[in-house]
């Protein structure tokens, strides 16, 4: 037990990200409703963000915003004191992208509903084959 806790602490973030990603992926593949799929898509994307941020985390470090000294003198910045900023930057971009995709997907869902009055994939398929 004493060995297990450090191991879990060391890796659980990664394991849980995998689980989250599996949930998202499953929803995207197996769900029947288009909006559910969009949700799955978003979960999938957040899982990736979680993964990246887990990479960037550093124990006993503070936010990647440098504390400017109170009297204006610049303290020496030590890399160990700050969390890795690069994954944050990357993930900001990724979030933006996912929002954009989300908006477009929603717009499309509205369009599809306008046309077919349903968002269930099997019903859509039926409608398509009827025409």
């Amino acid at each position, binding site marked *: 037990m004493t060995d297990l806790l450090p191991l879990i*602490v*060391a890796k659980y973030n990664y394991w849980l990200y995998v689980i989250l990603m599996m949930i998202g992926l499953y929803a995207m593949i197996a769900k029947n409703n288009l909006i559910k799929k969009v949700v799955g898509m978003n979960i999938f994307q957040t899982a990736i963000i979680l993964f990246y941020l*887990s990479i960037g985390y550093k124990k006993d470090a503070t936010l990647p915003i440098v504390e400017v000294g109170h009297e204006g003198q610049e303290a020496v910045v030590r890399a160990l004191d700050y969390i890795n900023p690069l994954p944050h930057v990357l993930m900001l971009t990724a979030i933006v992208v996912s929002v954009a995709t989300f908006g*477009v997907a929603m717009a499309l869902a509205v369009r599809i509903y306008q046309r077919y009055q349903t968002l269930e994939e099997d019903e859509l398929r039926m409608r398509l084959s009827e025409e």
Partner: protein
Amino acid sequence: MKFLGFIVVCLTGALLLYGTGQFPAWGDPGSPASTHLSNYYIEKTVEQTQVPNIVTAVLADYRGFDTMFETSVIFCAGLTCFLLLRDFTEKKERFYRHRPTGVILHVKDSEKVLKVGKEFEHIDKDFVPSDLIIKTVCRILIPFIQIYALYVVAHGDFSPGGGFQGGVIFGSSLILLAISYDLKTLVERIKEKVLGIFAAVGVLIYVGIATICMPMGGNFLNYGMLAPLLPGDPRHVRALGMLGVEIGVGLAVMAVMAIIYINIVSEGRHDEGL
């Protein structure tokens, strides 16, 4: 499909779990990811750019090129929603509401057009009058939210936030206006055309600032070259460049969020939303 999905998911999960086997421990300061590039950013940012928020500095300067395209993505999303949903056709059936009394007229004849103005307003069949309490409270809240959004944009250098977040919050304030009153209020206040122009201009500010650096003798995006154009301490020129860029991002994002919301919620008819 469910079974297939399950199998795919399990395979992917197995692959990823296999990959985690050799991961360095969570939060390990000595992992390669935290030592190679990031140290440079952490140690040099303040010195090189005078911006305490490293994330902003990396976002808008070191990797500003990414962010430029990120903004383009947002712009593109807005444009897409507009293209997909915007519907300019006039409906044959129309509803009018007499403003002072709240009487609703249902006009079935497409020829007859009531004058929309002070007395009558054009509504759709989903019309529900907005709630007084919500309306009043939101009326008070919205300017504060907006000033907050602008604060977030302006303080991207010092605190979390920046153009994108500020833009989103500003956009939400507009959305709040649309929710608490109705969509028409928003559309009347900020015309669709203005939003469209804002979206393009926002990205254009970014790309423009980046492009100006080239005739000034630097590489693309090299804000350092803007020193002759800007007032103030030349050491701060990069920070100023970033600020300009953030403002562009904020403008674009604000406009795009509003565009997306308006188009989705009214199916592109811009009459009545949530």
